[in-house]
């Protein structure tokens, strides 16, 4: 067995203590850990108990994120509560499971008065839930069982008698339905009344020398790498313990615990007789390719449409609201105060532009979070993992990665959010690093412009080819990452417990969507505002000595932004487009790909074409520029430019969302990696293509 002296769990407790400080009129008095298998409704319960008093945090030195919050358990008592990653066992086989196991181990090592673990049991799959419960119980911690999905078990004629279960497992059992908002007060009353001794030792002897004593760190299991081997966790091997022996001992203990589980099931009379449940009937259709594939494609299409066609006008309306009436009001207000022009420009073009970006993306986030919640909560997403497993396995990804990668062709931001549906943090990160290479619709405008200017008559083929290139880049980057930084991540053959299907509930959906949108606005919004202001400063600082700071009439080339574009442009000489107009468009393209065409037009002193395929004067100027910079091979340079636009950072909102999900260091690596890859691809296309031109 190995151990290490610092991991996420210490941080779990420390962070949980600082959760939602503004909500804490009273200091938290106890710690509650929420433990359960994946897909048992744990997060829905957490949302119900904490409301808005929660936040997401990344466990230090891992890619695992957890939710911590404050549960107002009574009028005069507050509780720190942590929603730990779903796990099948306290013997971890992944970083996510390790965080959960360590959190339980830490609490068991130094429990405070009133501290308790709530193990969420799935009534439709009680056996494996009880196995996890038994492990937690054997840790010696006070444990309360929260029984979910009993309504579904009832509909399958296999309801669980909570009282009988409580007697059998020697712990309080609270039947809850967090999706309907049922059971929170009963759970609170049970936690407040439970002193942790009333049920001890009834079934699982926590004092037995054979009982599991959770250890920090993971057992090294032959056949699998250490859960931490691909992550920067420091694992100090324990020379006194043979991994084979330890693992065999755990295997023997697993069989013993499951024998106990079978006794419990027999005692409470849970039916295990074969009968088709409503979920079986749905699966018989949805997990057959002839039905399942069309339904899956229809859901993907609907999600794609919702995040593009449907959300587009709504986003435009919000953006128009900010850039129209709101901006007008602020301009009038500042004018009435005789504020300097730079302040008005800063407010309108910096601050309000950033706020407008955040606000305009909120409807999109509402749509995608709603879709994600419905797919997760209904149980369908677990089936997606099965259906797409074969295709995604070929590039070493979880089957659920297909959803974000496809959504990414509409917009990368909701696609990144959709990576949250992937339970394994390493797979989630790998997918999150691939999403920016999905060619979103914002890039389409660039392709249309360049293709119509340089390949008239073949524009459609060129645009289609760009989408093929996008898929090739995704596959190529996936292989490259799997062979390098993710080489320790073994893609295990699929084994997944399928939750029963259930109809999503509006209350739980509204809570989850509101919380996730709030998290996006708070955490991504800061980054978006910061970058928006930085771009404004570049545009506002004059370098020619003829204009004042923030002069709204200043030409782009007279600003620091223009100078930066001019300074950067030689970098693109090997790719055939070393021109400051083009470089300026790539810089604003970092903010939003929609800005590329507009910047090209602005820097040439032209109006942005309303239809990019009818570029008018801009067409001629682009042909001149690319012909000059490419040495007479404008088409090749245009292809290199389009591929660069495909591969480099999609937009600053994507950067903000990546930072929110994966942290600053990983985001910095992703952004710089994509820029380098984009440059290499563009140069390769221009140089190699030039050999055949």
């Amino acid at each position, binding site marked *: 067995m190995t151990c290490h002296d610092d991991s996420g769990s210490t941080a779990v407790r420390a962070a949980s203590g600082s959760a939602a400080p503004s909500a804490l009129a009273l200091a938290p008095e106890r710690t509650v850990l929420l433990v359960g298998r994946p897909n048992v409704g744990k997060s829905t319960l957490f949302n119900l108990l904490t409301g808005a008093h929660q936040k997401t945090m990344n466990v230090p030195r891992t890619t695992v994120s957890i939710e911590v919050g404050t549960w107002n358990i009574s009028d005069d008592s507050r509780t720190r509560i942590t929603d730990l990653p779903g796990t099948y066992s306290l013997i971890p086989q992944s970083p996510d499971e390790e965080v959960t196991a360590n959190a339980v181990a830490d609490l068991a090592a130094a429990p405070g008065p009133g501290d308790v673990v709530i193990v969420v049991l799935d009534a*439709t799959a009680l056996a494996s839930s009880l196995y996890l419960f038994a492990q937690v119980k054997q840790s010696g911690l006070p444990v309360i069982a929260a029984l979910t999905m009993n309504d579904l078990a009832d509909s399958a004629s296999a309801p669980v008698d909570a009282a009988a279960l409580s007697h059998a497992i020697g712990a309080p059992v609270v039947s809850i339905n967090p999706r309907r908002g049922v059971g929170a007060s009963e759970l609170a009353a049970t936690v407040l009344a439970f002193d942790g001794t009333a049920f001890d030792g009834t079934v699982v002897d926590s004092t037995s020398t054979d009982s599991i004593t959770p250890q920090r760190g993971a057992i090294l299991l032959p056949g699998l790498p250490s859960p931490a081997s691909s992550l920067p966790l420091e694992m100090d091997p324990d020379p006194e313990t043979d991994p084979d022996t330890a*693992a065999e001992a755990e295997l023997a203990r697993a069989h013993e615990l499951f024998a106990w589980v079978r006794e419990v099931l027999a005692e409470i009379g849970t*039916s*295990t007789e*074969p009968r*088709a449940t409503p979920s079986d009937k749905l699966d018989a259709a949805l997990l*057959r390719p002839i039905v*399942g594939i069309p339904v899956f494609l229809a859901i993907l299409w609907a999600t794609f449409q919702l995040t593009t066609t449907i959300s587009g006008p709504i986003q435009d309306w919000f953006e128009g609201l900010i850039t129209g009436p709101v901006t007008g009001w602020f301009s009038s207000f500042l004018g009435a105060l005789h504020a300097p022009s730079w302040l008005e420009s800063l407010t309108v073009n910096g601050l309000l532009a950033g706020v407008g970006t955040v606000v305009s993306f909120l409807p999109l986030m509402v749509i995608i979070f709603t879709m994600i919640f419905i797919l997760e909560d209904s149980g369908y997403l677990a089936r997606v993992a*099965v259906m797409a497993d074969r295709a995604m396995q070929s590039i070493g990804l979880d089957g659920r990665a297909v959803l974000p990668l496809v959504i990414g062709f509409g917009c990368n931001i909701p696609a990144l959010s959709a990576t949250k549906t992937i339970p394994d943090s390493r797979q989630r990160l790998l997918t999150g690093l691939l999403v920016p290479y999905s060619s979103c619709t914002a890039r389409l405008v660039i392709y249309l412009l360049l293709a119509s200017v340089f390949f008239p008559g073949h524009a459609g083929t060129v645009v289609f080819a760009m989408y093929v290139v996008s898929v090739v880049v995704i596959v190529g980057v996936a292989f490259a990452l799997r062979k390098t930084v993710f080489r320790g991540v073994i893609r295990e053959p699929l084994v997944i417990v*399928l939750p029963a299907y259930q109809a999503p509930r509006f209350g739980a959906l509204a809570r989850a969507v509101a919380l996730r949108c709030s998290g996006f606005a708070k955490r991504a919004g800061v980054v978006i505002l910061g970058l928006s202001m930085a771009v404004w400063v570049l545009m506002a600082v004059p370098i020619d000595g003829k204009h004042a700071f923030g002069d709204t009439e200043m030409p782009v080339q007279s600003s620091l932004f223009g100078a930066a574009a001019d300074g950067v442009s030689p970098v693109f000489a090997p790719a055939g487009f070393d021109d400051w107009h083009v470089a300026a468009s790539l810089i604003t393209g970092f903010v939003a790909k929609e800005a590329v065409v507009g910047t090209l037009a602005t820097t040439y002193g032209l109006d942005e074409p309303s239809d990019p395929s009818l570029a008018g004067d801009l067409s001629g100027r682009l042909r001149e520029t690319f012909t000059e910079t490419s040495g007479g091979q404008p088409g090749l340079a245009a292809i290199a430019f389009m591929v660069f636009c495909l591969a480099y950072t999609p937009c600053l909102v994507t950067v903000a969302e990546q930072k929110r999900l994966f942290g600053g260091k990983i985001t910095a690596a992703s952004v710089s990696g994509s820029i380098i890859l984009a440059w290499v691809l563009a140069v390769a296309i221009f140089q190699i293509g030039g050999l055949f031109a």
Partner: protein
Amino acid sequence: MNLANCPLGTLVVITGVNGSVAERLRFAELGLSPGSTAAALLSGFGKRRVIRLGTQRIAFAPQAAGKISVELVEPETVESAMVPAAARMPAAPVPVLAGH
């Protein structure tokens, strides 16, 4: 015979679990241990299988299902919704679903 190739809709008893200790441990944690009974309900999408284990439904890639050795217990009539009618026709070999 193993869970990857046992007939659909028949009750089987697990006789052995192969693989690394880690794999066997994870199978055991799901209740897949010698002596347990299960039934394969569905097969599709590259021979991925859904099995019934007690009240649980577990989906397996063929590489994982192939590590669980089983023996037939007895023919079991599974309700029509769970297995295509063709799979229950007595005169024909039990087929798996299309799309493998």
